[in-house]
């Protein structure tokens, strides 16, 4: 026993000279302390920024929060307008965009995880989907303008929905593929062993097993497109009047915020803050819901 403890002194290195090792140790620990402190400060800065954004929104937005915001449509400055058309427009475009994008994304994710695996085509699709995921959203707006606005002679809510759907696809693809790959082979084998065809195994067994993850992906996609502004500028354009027609320009919260925040009228700027408050807390709530769901699944 005593032999093992005393043998520590036979370890080669600076530990032999106590003074050197103490000095070295001090230096090392000082550097360690400095770096640690800087990291804590960086994290605190991040938290302060998030806090600053949320508090600014609450402070500026809550002042203008009233029932008329939800009951009135946008009106000329000074006449007590609301955001009803923008809220409804955002809801319509988000729902339709998600409804178009989700099935496509789901199928692509299924293809990648169940059929393509690592074939050249699947690798290409995976790569393209990843690029689409991070591609500047304003370019998607320009693209949709080229084929869904210009040829049809005008901005429309439908074009906005298409632009948002294109953003939804890669998000759903990513989560679907990841989730389908997590399913244990034994589950599949059991279903195949019972004689189920592959598509039934996928639709009835795998989708169900991966449901929480897939829904998380869809929720994250909704949160993303609900706050998107750039792709809507050239597609659904925004509309100061009440309109739920997909053939007409359609209002949306982010675009209304963009138009109002830059205006010279105090009540419009105030409305922009209210809109910002609504959209941010809506988006963050969906995000938190998605995370809770994923945690429940784990």
């Amino acid at each position, binding site marked *: 026993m005593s032999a093992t403890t005393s043998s520590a002194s036979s370890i080669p290195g600076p530990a032999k000279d106590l003074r050197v090792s103490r000095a070295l140790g001090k230096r090392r620990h000082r550097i360690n302390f400095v770096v640690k402190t800087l990291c*804590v400060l*960086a994290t605190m800065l991040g938290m302060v920024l998030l806090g600053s954004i949320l508090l600014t929104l609450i402070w500026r937005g809550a002042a203008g929060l009233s029932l008329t915001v939800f009951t009135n449509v946008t009106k000329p400055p000074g006449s007590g307008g609301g955001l009803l058309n923008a809220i409804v427009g955002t809801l319509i475009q988000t729902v339709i965009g998600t409804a178009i994008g989700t099935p496509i994304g789901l199928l*692509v994710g299924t293809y990648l995880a169940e059929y393509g695996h690592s074939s050249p085509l699947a690798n290409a699709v995976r790569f393209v989907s990843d690029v689409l995921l991070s591609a*500047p959203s304003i370019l998607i707006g320009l*693209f949709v303008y080229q084929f869904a606005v210009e040829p049809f002679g005008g901005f429309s809510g439908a074009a906005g929905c298409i632009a948002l759907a294109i953003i939804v696809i890669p998000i759903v693809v990513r989560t679907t593929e990841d989730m389908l790959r997590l399913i244990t082979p034994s589950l599949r084998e059991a279903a195949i062993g019972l004689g189920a065809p592959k*598509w039934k195994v996928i639709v009835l067994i795998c989708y169900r097993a991966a449901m929480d993850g897939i829904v998380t992906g869809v929720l994250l996609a909704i949160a993303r497109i609900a706050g*998107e*502004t750039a792709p809507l500028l050239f597609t659904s354009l925004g509309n100061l009047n009440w309109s739920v027609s997909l053939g007409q320009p359609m209002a949306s919260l982010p675009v209304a915020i963009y138009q109002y925040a830059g205006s010279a009228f105090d009540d419009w700027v105030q409305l922009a803050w209210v809109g910002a408050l609504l959209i941010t807390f809506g988006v963050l709530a969906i995000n938190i819901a998605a995370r809770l769901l994923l945690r429940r699944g784990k």
Partner: protein
Amino acid sequence: MQQAAALNASSGSRSKFRPGDPIFAALSRASGIFVLLLLGSLILSLFVGGIPAFRHFGLGFLFSTTWDPVKEIFGAGVSIYGTVMTAVLSMILAVPLAFGIAFYLTELAPAWLKRPVGIAVELLAAVPSIIYGMWGFFVIVPLMSQYVEPTLIDLFDGVPVLEDLFAGPPFGTGIFTAALILTVMVVPFIAATMRDVFETVPPVFKESAYGLGCTTWEVMRSIVAPYTRTSVIGGIMLGFGRALGETMAVTFVIGNSAHISASLFSSGNTIASIVALEFPESPAGSLKLSSLLALGFILFVISFIVLAISRTLLRPKLKV
């Protein structure tokens, strides 16, 4: 005999006639091809739309710094400069910050803080970009014009090079402020990726280093950092790609002018911001619209390259 034949026939027909499988396979394959075509047509439509501008201005379009809607002379120089400048500046600021946060989240944070701080970082990434724009315009810009910019101008007065970088009237808007807002936007992205990458380091490696008496920072520097180097660079490139294409936040704070100036406090524009601002005043079929589409094509090419590099570096670590 007959019975057996009937059974055979029925089972044979059953195994033959199962349209579900091929249909579903074809459908999912078709959706995959659809995504390929989608990106292909996106590139093609931007390129085709930009052809008149490319043809009219030639290769000089890329370098010309003139943007004159009245005389119909358009060049991409100012916007490309603004795009790259703001994105690079924001990376210089964002990378150390993101690294600090990721290091804190993986090694330093007490267990009970890890989750809430991690979620807060992810929420910061989820805030819509237009909100960053408003926050920047109403909160950061006044701070910049009243305190930060005058201080920096005084501080570097007389210092060569820096004197020119931090010069001019402190309006609060400009390249520098845009880079700051971009920093706040990309830090959570990079930090989240770095954290995920850091967590792929096998615990045994770290434990053995700790066992040898390494400090936390030494474990980070000599074990985690070398192990994750390529993926960390991939994560940084991902953030860079985001910064290049960011539209709304930049449009609010960059000041929007078509000039290049040595000073970081001067206003400028980026490809995304000029497209967002000038598009409403560009009638269909005009040379201006074509120039904007050409700018879009250039932006796509730049971010495509950055994203492709990022993905090549990241994929092996984060994906099985």
